[in-house]
């Protein structure tokens, strides 16, 4: 199943993409929490981010130190080309399944 990613991983990847230049730990967490209305722990989020980095779906760099957060630097994330391919894989699979559905999935009555 190379190239396929889990649901939470997809969520994190897409959130990183949606945040653009401002994708760092807290921002990703807040964004997912408000959008999906669920509470996620910072540990779980960073675990997933680490795995995504291991799979080379994202890269990261350290920002400049700022006055907030005790002068500690933020680590920013960015989707790699590989990450984009993975997202496409998931999306293609979904689209295909949507199209193949024999039951109408339309919610309109």
């Amino acid at each position, binding site marked *: 199943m190379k190239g396929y990613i889990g649901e939470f991983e997809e969520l994190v990847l897409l959130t990183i993409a949606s945040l653009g230049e401002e994708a760092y730990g*807290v921002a990703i967490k807040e964004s997912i929490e408000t959008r999906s209305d669920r509470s996620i722990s910072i*540990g779980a989020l960073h675990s997933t981010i680490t795995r995504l980095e291991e799979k080379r779906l994202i890269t990261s760099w*350290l920002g400049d130190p700022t006055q907030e957060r*005790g002068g500690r630097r933020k*680590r920013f994330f960015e989707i790699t080309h590989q990450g984009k391919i993975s997202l496409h894989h998931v999306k293609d699979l979904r689209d295909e399944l949507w199209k193949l559905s024999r039951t109408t999935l339309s919610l309109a009555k």
Partner: protein
Amino acid sequence: MKKENIKPPAFAEKFFEWYCRNAAIEDLHGDIDELFYANLERMSVAKAKFKYCQQVLSLVVSYAVKKRKKKSSYHPYTLNQSVMIGNYFKVASRNILKHKMYSFINAFGLSIGIAFCMLIYLFIRDEKSFDQFHSNKNQIYRMEAKRNSKNPPTRDAALQLGLRNVLKEELPEVKYATRFNSGRAVTLHYRDKIFSEKIAYVDADFFKMFSFKLLAGNAEKIFQNKNEVAVTPEIAEKYFGKEDAMGKTISIDNGGEKLFTVAAIIEAPPANSSLDFQILVPTESMRGYERQVEDWSSFGTNCFVQLLDRADSARFHTNLVKFGQKYMGNIELVFTPLTDVHLMKSIGWHKVSDPQYAYILGGIAVLILAIACINYISLALTTSASRRKEVGVRKVTGAGRLQLIYQFGIESLLLACISMFIGIMLVILFLPSFNQFTGKEIAIDWKDWAELLTIGLALTFIVGFLAGSYPSIFLSRFQPASVLKGHFTSQLQANFTKPLVVLQFFLSASLIICSVIMYRQMKFVATKDLGYNKDQTLVIQTQTGWRDKQANKIVERFKTRAQGESGIVSVAGTGSSFAQGVGRFWYKINEEEKAAYVYAVDPSYLSTLGIHLVQGRNFDANVFSDSSAVIVNEALVKDLNWADPLNEHLNWREDTVGLGSKVIGVVKDYHFLSLEENIEPMFLTMDQFFGYHTKMLVRVEAGNVPASLEKVQRLWKELFPDKSFNYSFLDQDVAKQYESYERWMSITGLATGFAILISCMGLFGLAGINAVNRTKEIGIRKVLGAEVASIFILLNKQYVWLSLIAFVLAVPLSWYLMNRWLASFKFSIAISWELFALSTLAGLVIALATVSYHAFKTAAVNPAETLKYE
């Protein structure tokens, strides 16, 4: 409450940082902090804090932290040293090779220190191993007599001959008991082989008590017949050669020849056995045994008992007290465990040793090691200047302080390791001479090597740690910015090394003073006028029992034969010769217990030894009453408060009818005992109660001693062809009494030599560094007109001061130590200020000679050479 001032809970933060140690978690930390401040806006402070803790926990268990921690451990510049260790060794070995002279000084000192420590360890181990090989060692005790009437009470192991039998019969706790009467020389005769040997009288129980292996014979049945003998393989081979010794008959002449059958071959006692023997015969075979066993007033037999396995030694003690009252009168019977016998200095034994010496030796070894460690520390500190840049660069490229400490630590450890291997080689090299010095027979078995290596490694780590810790802490403290900017002053290090140099010289100086005093005392002992003439005097054993009338006849025959022979001045017979055992006699005068040393002599005794008569006359062979008369010494006259000794009688017989022996002369006091003792009361007698002449003194002419010796031997062979010629020189016998002191003097001397050598090498190194540091200063001084002499003084002044301080400190210590050492002599030199002055001067000269090389070299350099690069 202003929410901006609220901080995340400190303990959670600390925990997080501690848990992650040096993993890169700056971003994660920032994230939770940011969330905390955001939460403060949304909820109560307590809840925000609680959430913070929750977040820390979730991170701690998360994969993110796990991964980052794992990654951090591969990072080279971190606490995990595994990657760097190889590099440390490389740097350390390069540094050792780069400073060849300092490395040599350090390794030399440390290896001698380590070698000394190992030798001392072997020595102490050998001392402790005495008599440990007996399987019954915990049940065996040596019996002793304690005389409480004396002040202070005396204690010795010489007991009555009959004691053993009654002990075994009457005390229920005693399982086995044996006498041990050793050291008596007798003549053994088997076919054409005649030798004089020392035998030991024991009882059959001896073989059951002690774990000396019987190579042939039956331990249960031996000595049931009193004409049996047990010999060591060495003796068996000496007399019987390759033949089987068992069952052979050999004649033993101990005041009358008797035939003995070899009933057992017994393993020779090891070097660490308190009991030493070669030939064992039953005590019952002793001449006049039946009469002597009833004699409860003469003491001269050692006795060992083995208690029953479950016996209570306290109970034994109370039983002994009752028993003692019955047989011993006012003498108390006491006992010592066999395993303690060797180190009981206070009780005379033929193989006894003073535990103090082990401590002294250990102390010396530690001193030498300490001096070597100080060398390392002071040299490392003074050469630190050249390593400052290295430390700076290392720190700038990311090395932590701990890492530098490790690096320097490994450097000292490596040096210590090298020293350990050199030290082990030195041990192998010097073990024979060490054995000679200490009179031991230590051998290193292959199985001892594991132990020695362990000791060596332990020493290495201790030394590496002691010597390496301070320099490494000191060196790692440099601030890279100030070091690399280059305005670092080099005045710092001298202050650290000065106290170390003083300490080092203090130790060496104490040793110097001690050896000078010991040397003086030994010289005093060797040259002191003893009151008689000990030179050119032969002591010949007549090889007869002291109860054997034959003895006096042998002396008489020899005396007659030797008359008129050139080279032989005079011949005298005596019961005991100096330093070959003494006879002491206890008697009562007016209910007061008195003791005197007794010498059974003949009329030519005084003239042969050149002893001065102060009153009265010598014995005369033609005056019949002289055979019961005595000549006393001045000490005895004083002891008995005689005003006119020539009109007195010495009633040693405790005769109630007669007056006792007439005193016919008084001799000037002379040292018939060693100089450790006072001159005690003594009398000379011809009375045969005190035995016959087992020794013959022959004074030969001073000119050609070897020729005279040969003549004496020829005459002996001519007169007594069946007796071996056993002789010694009186002066050598007397010198032998001080053998152990001589040994300790040479050990201290050796240690002093090494201590001086090592500390001088250290001083040499220091002076060299100091001179190099001041090369430019001296160049400038010379340009401005300074003389070579003044520069020489400038460079040496501080060392002279330091060694003077050290000597002043060393005086009280060595004075105290030497006072204690000299206390074992009743006759000793006075410790005077000249001795200290002499030692101080010697030490100063040595120190000055050491540092002068560098001073001369530096002072002589043309200033143009040193200043041309400025």
